[in-house]
């Protein structure tokens, strides 16, 4: 039974990824603008354009191009970037860790802030503190991530000038890293000086991405918590001599977490989508800012590679959320 479930899951993943690949492939070819013409210097002849177009295979029909591209992808060949003239897979893998670390930090902030506000609001439910938290959440929720980014840049970068507002790490530093996961590697190598420098660059874009999600987590979790806090088993826990905080942490949180977990899964894909603009805003070298360049340059192979990578991330997030769901809810483990 389990095997069947895994197989059907894998099949649905394959179908999803294929669908995304197909739609993106076709759509970016229907948008006007010749990528080859854009990369050539102004004096290029029609002949030059035709020769290069054939070289990249853009003279063939779209279905033909798709089959060729898909064949390559299945063998791990994602083609060559037109604007950067490098292997797409290498480019994407080089930028992906930066984005994953940024999104990971943002998720960490969002959960930390969201859960803390939800718990605090639940303990003080019905009091002024809860109203204050509701107002703050409303404000955070209705302000998009890039506006938070601008606000943070203005406050800490321009007015107070406490932090640099651009890049992933200070350029003058000597980096000993062998992978692109700078933050993780700095921790693994115990180079906390580098960790500090990385965090000084990352915290603002991460916080900008995190705030809207943190408000969503706070509101949904608070509603669930308040409901669970009226149930019989939390009442029984109180009769055991638990304080409100103990009741929340030992009895309520796990059961209240399920709706929030589902929401966080869905919203995390939004957060990762948000990296595209926020990375550009902070000149952070990740996949998102590369995506913008790729679109501006009509770099079709690169766009395809990036979009497919995002799709794989989204599918992976869904898978992880489902797994966590089963872990948190023992009733799902059987049957």
């Amino acid at each position: 039974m389990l095997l069947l479930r895994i197989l059907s899951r894998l099949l649905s993943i394959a179908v999803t990824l294929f669908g995304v690949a197909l739609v993106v492939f076709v759509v970016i070819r229907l948008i006007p603008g010749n990528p080859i013409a854009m990369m050539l210097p102004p004096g290029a002849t029609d002949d030059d354009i035709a020769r290069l177009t054939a070289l990249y295979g853009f003279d063939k029909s779209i279905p033909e191009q798709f089959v060729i591209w898909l064949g390559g992808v299945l063998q791990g060949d994602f083609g060559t970037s037109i604007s950067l003239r490098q292997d797409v897979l290498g480019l994407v893998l080089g930028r992906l860790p930066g984005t994953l670390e940024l999104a990971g930090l943002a998720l960490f902030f969002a959960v930390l802030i969201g859960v803390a506000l939800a718990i605090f609001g639940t303990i003080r439910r019905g009091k002024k503190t809860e109203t204050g938290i509701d107002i703050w959440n409303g404000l955070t929720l209705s302000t998009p991530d890039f506006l938070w980014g601008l606000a943070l840049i203005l406050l800490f970068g321009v007015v107070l000038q406490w932090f640099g507002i651009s890049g992933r790490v200070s350029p003058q530093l000597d980096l000993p890293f062998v992978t692109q996961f700078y933050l993780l590697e700095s921790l693994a190598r115990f180079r906390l000086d580098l960790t500090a420098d990385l965090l000084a660059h990352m915290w603002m874009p991460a916080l900008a991405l995190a705030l809207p999600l943190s408000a969503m987590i706070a509101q949904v979790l608070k509603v669930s918590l308040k409901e669970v806090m009226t149930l019989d088993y939390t009442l029984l826990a109180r009769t055991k001599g638990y304080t409100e905080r103990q009741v929340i942490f030992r009895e309520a949180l796990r059961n209240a977490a399920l709706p929030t977990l589902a929401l966080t899964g869905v919203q995390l894909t939004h957060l990762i989508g948000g990296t595209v603009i926020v990375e550009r805003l902070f000149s952070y070298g990740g996949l998102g800012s590369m995506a913008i360049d790729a679109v501006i340059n009509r770099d079709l192979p690169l766009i395809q590679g990036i979009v497919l990578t995002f799709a794989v991330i989204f599918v992976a997030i869904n898978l992880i959320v489902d797994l966590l769901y089963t872990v948190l809810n023992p009733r799902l483990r059987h049957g």
Partner: protein
Amino acid sequence: MSFLTIQDLDVRLRGSGQRLLRGVSLEVAQGQVHGLVGESGAGKSMIGKAILDVLPRSVEIAGGRITLGETDLTALPAKARRHELGQRTALIPQDPLTALNPARRIGGQITDRLTRVLGWGAARADARAVELLDEVQISDPARVMKSYPHELSGGMRQRVLIAAAFAAEPELIIADEPTTALDVTVQKQILKMIAAMQAAHNTTMLFVTHDLGVVARVCQRVSVLFAGHVVEDADIHTLLSVPGHPYSQALLSATPRYDDPRASLRPVPQSVIDATRAEAEAHDV
């Protein structure tokens, strides 16, 4: 000498000030089982919750005193009261389906109070839990302790909750309609078990029910409650043979008799209800 004493307990709805308990007083001697009967909404559970300090947030204690042994509970600061109650009292809840945390294994839910409040080690607490599960006649306690609530039947869960209530040898147990949610066939077993455990542990007990038949089996004294007001407080024999208040009489006639199941039942007459309500409300000044 009474062990649990409630004096003039006044509980009101926050905001509107509507009265839910109107000067309730009762005394329970150590080791006694005291029944609380009355129709739905009379305030039986409210009394239990007030004692255990788990009243809903929408209501508040507006007056009165609750004393447990030498301790005036109402005079304690909130945190100390919770802690004191956690060590000395326990609740057997009404609905075994909702009173266990669905995400936690049974074992932990029995030993919580031992490990978290009394500071026992895990091994000692587990051994005690096995002992208790034996006592409530659950076979294979080790397996049950590793189970999740949804893997057990309603009767099994209620046994687990009874075991958990007795775990820390509380001085007072409040049983709030502990058999109402169960199958009729299981009800009697559970009732017998609670009575036997109460006797074996010599625990003082407040037994909430709307069923006079149940009261007759387990209680020594009874308070009859109507609209948050105690209309009669009597020992069980007096109440069943010569009830003093018209409402108690009417309630008795409305209860099926075990010795004569076909005896005709008369619902409580409206005139009695009205008169009793007037009496209860005369308390509000």
